[in-house]
């Protein structure tokens, strides 16, 4: 039998369909975060010119590194359509464990701490996928549990003296750029490459956009999600180490104030909180914006109490600007 199906003559003409999504304002949406960051820099620079000096920018980079590390892994989980609220608690726990273990067993303690935080993340991912519990709930429970554990073990700030050099290099600078910032940037680039060119990245975006369709295409949804949460665990650990390096101590509440800023960084960058849309380039801009805001408010001499208000306003504005309404009509 002849296979020739009756069909149109020209296969490449525009689709006869008419549900093309309106593209108007696409550029505005895509580049708004960058514009916000630049205007913020310029505005602050105008008020306080010293803010743009090499020294101040260096401080800025140093200041941004922990948020950058946390936001990088958070982005992956948010792209998956989930969220990890436990990252800062795990980072604090990591700082306590590092402060306790580093003087006792030396640099190998770092490997142990990172392995442990990765495991914590993976277990949360496992509970989320196998138990079919929303990641919001699982990691909210984690936030409580790991904070409590850190407090139980650590009680208070633990100074690190012996063995500090194992993390101390993170607090120094090479060729004028803080090492912690270089580490954060390297980690971000590595994950960005993974998201773009590894099957893992494709899977992440597919799951975030349409989990059932991804699953029915043979995407190992459970494994990808667990890997995503293992990454947030690992990066929480890294953030913990960076904080130990900065303050020469570990503390059970050291990262507590960073939970809102990291999520804000991801969202302000333009990654959709509903999953599937966004990326690490955007998070980089978002994290810098948050840091500039933090530092600038302090530089200008504004009461630190206003800081969270500023995040709040920015998050709402960013979500209003970036959310893909055509895709996310049902928002929970």
């Amino acid at each position: 039998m002849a296979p020739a199906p009756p069909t149109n003559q020209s296969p490449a003409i525009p689709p006869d369909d008419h549900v093309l999504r309106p593209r108007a304002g696409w550029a505005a949406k895509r580049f708004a975060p960058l514009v916000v960051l630049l205007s913020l820099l310029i505005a602050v620079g105008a008020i306080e010119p010293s803010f743009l000096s090499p020294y101040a920018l260096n401080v800025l980079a140093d200041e941004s590194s922990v948020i950058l590390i946390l936001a990088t892994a958070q982005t992956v989980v948010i792209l998956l359509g989930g969220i990890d609220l436990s990252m800062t608690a795990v980072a604090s726990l990591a700082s306590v464990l590092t402060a306790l273990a580093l003087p006792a067993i030396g640099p190998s303690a770092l490997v142990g701490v990172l392995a442990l935080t990765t495991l914590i993340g993976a277990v949360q991912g496992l509970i989320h996928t196998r138990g079919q519990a929303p990641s919001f709930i699982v990691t909210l429970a984690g936030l409580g549990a790991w904070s409590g554990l850190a407090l139980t073990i650590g009680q208070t700030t633990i100074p690190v003296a012996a063995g500090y050099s194992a993390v101390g290099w993170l607090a120094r600078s090479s060729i004028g750029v803080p090492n912690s910032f270089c580490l954060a940037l390297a980690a971000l680039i590595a994950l960005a490459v993974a998201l773009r060119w590894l099957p893992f990245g494709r899977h992440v975006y597919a799951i975030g956009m349409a989990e059932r369709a991804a699953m029915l295409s043979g995407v190992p949804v459970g494994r990808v999600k667990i890997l995503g949460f293992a990454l947030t665990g690992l990066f929480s650990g890294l953030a913990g180490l960076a904080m130990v390096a900065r303050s020469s101590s570990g503390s059970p509440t050291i990262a507590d104030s960073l939970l809102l800023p990291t999520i804000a960084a991801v969202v302000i960058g333009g990654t959709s909180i509903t999953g599937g849309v966004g990326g690490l380039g955007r998070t980089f801009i978002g994290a810098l914006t948050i840091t500039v805001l933090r530092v600038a408010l302090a530089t200008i001499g504004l009461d630190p109490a206003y800081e969270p208000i500023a995040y709040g306003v920015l998050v709402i504005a960013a979500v209003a600007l970036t959310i893909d309404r055509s895709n996310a009509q049902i928002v929970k």
Partner: protein
Amino acid sequence: MTEPVLRVEGLSKSFAAVRALDDVSLDVRSREVVGLIGENGAGKSTLLKVLAGVLRADRGRVIVHGAPVSPANVAAAAACGIGIVFQEQALLPNVTVAENILLGHEGRALRTGFYDWRTLYALAATQLEKLGAEISPSALTATLSFAERQLVEIARALAIEERTRREPIILLDEPTSMLDVNGIETVLGQIERLRRRASVVFVSHRLDEVLRVADRIWVMVNGRCIAMRERAMCDIADLERLMLGRELDAGCQQQAPSSTHGPKVRLSVRELGRRNSYRGVSFDLHAGEVLGIAELAGSGGESLCRALFGAERADVGEIILDGRPVRLREPAEAVGHGIGYVPAERRLEGVVGGLGVRQNMTLAHLDELRRGPFIDVVGELRLVKNWIDRLRIRTPTAETPANSLSGGNQQKVVLAKWLIGRKLKVLILDHPTRGLDIGAKAEMFALIHKLARDGLGVLLVADTVDEVIALSHSIIVMKDGVVSGRFPASAAKPSRLQVLERML
């Protein structure tokens, strides 16, 4: 004849560069059922959406009962007397039928902000009685069947009547496309009843249905209303010609594959069962065979398909692939064994809407496209373009988001997703032609035949008995979860009646 109740004059609507409606004019008379047909993307849904206030036209007028209207939303359209039943059901599953019917216009049933349940049920019952539907107003909506929910939607649209004190105009957007034989009969019967109190615009891909209930039929092609036919003056072939502007290739449309399949058994199912779904199901699927499952919706066939793809677990029984028993705990495992699945719910389960055609096509086989740990993007694009050409997928580029293609082209993307796999052995098709227009259907038919010729084992659950018969070498019939009839390839093709007998 009196002034038409609804007149559309020169309606145009564009989305970006695409003209969805191009100078459309038509009219609907009092107590008339008007059929609206056309291929996917011809503009039928857009027209209904403009009438129902979901979209705004760029140009043109809509005149209802002699007065020009331009409703800004569904509520405003309802105030003009236009009610719509959408293709995707828009009922709240977790409240009662009565609440759904009267949602937003509770009237007397609302007393200082609280439901007066007795009045609410009574009002809802009035609407349901109009349809003669035996549905309890106090039933939880989620417990109804799909066909029953469709009736509830119609009842809700009919409730407009009381508020406008006029004959309503009811727009039905493919009300039968998701229903099985019984459900279709129910809905078509309701349309006949509706005629006594309303005007109806009925969109369907099934021309036989349109010819059964519509008095007049408008044909849309490429956003234009190209013809109107009286029911008495046309037949299916006429309408197909009008819609396509050409004759359908008869061979692709209906002819069943005559050749027999090879002797090699691809997939064996032994005594497979799942609680409350199916039991004791056994069959062999050969290489080069299309095995059709004929059933009424909910008889276990779809669930069986999912088990064979690892998307659902079977409780008992054995699945043997190429002579070796396999365990399918998740779809990823089935894909690893060379089993592909085209789900019925294309938009939710078939394509990842926001991703491009390229990413959708290669999603299941990224491992085969790797160079080292990375995806070979250049090779990927070459492969995807090749398949776009082979399946004649109409898409502007390989990067176009899949959800902006028409239904038929989306379905081809889903098929290509499996066909690019180098070791594909079995393809499971769950209602592969659902929601497709006849042109796209014919292409899908031809493709399925070709797949079987290429040595694939194809398991098929199709929309209608005719489709199963036309497409399959062998047929098993399922009823209430058990195999109630078998028509092997060696025997003569069964008739429609023979198959139906075993189903009902």
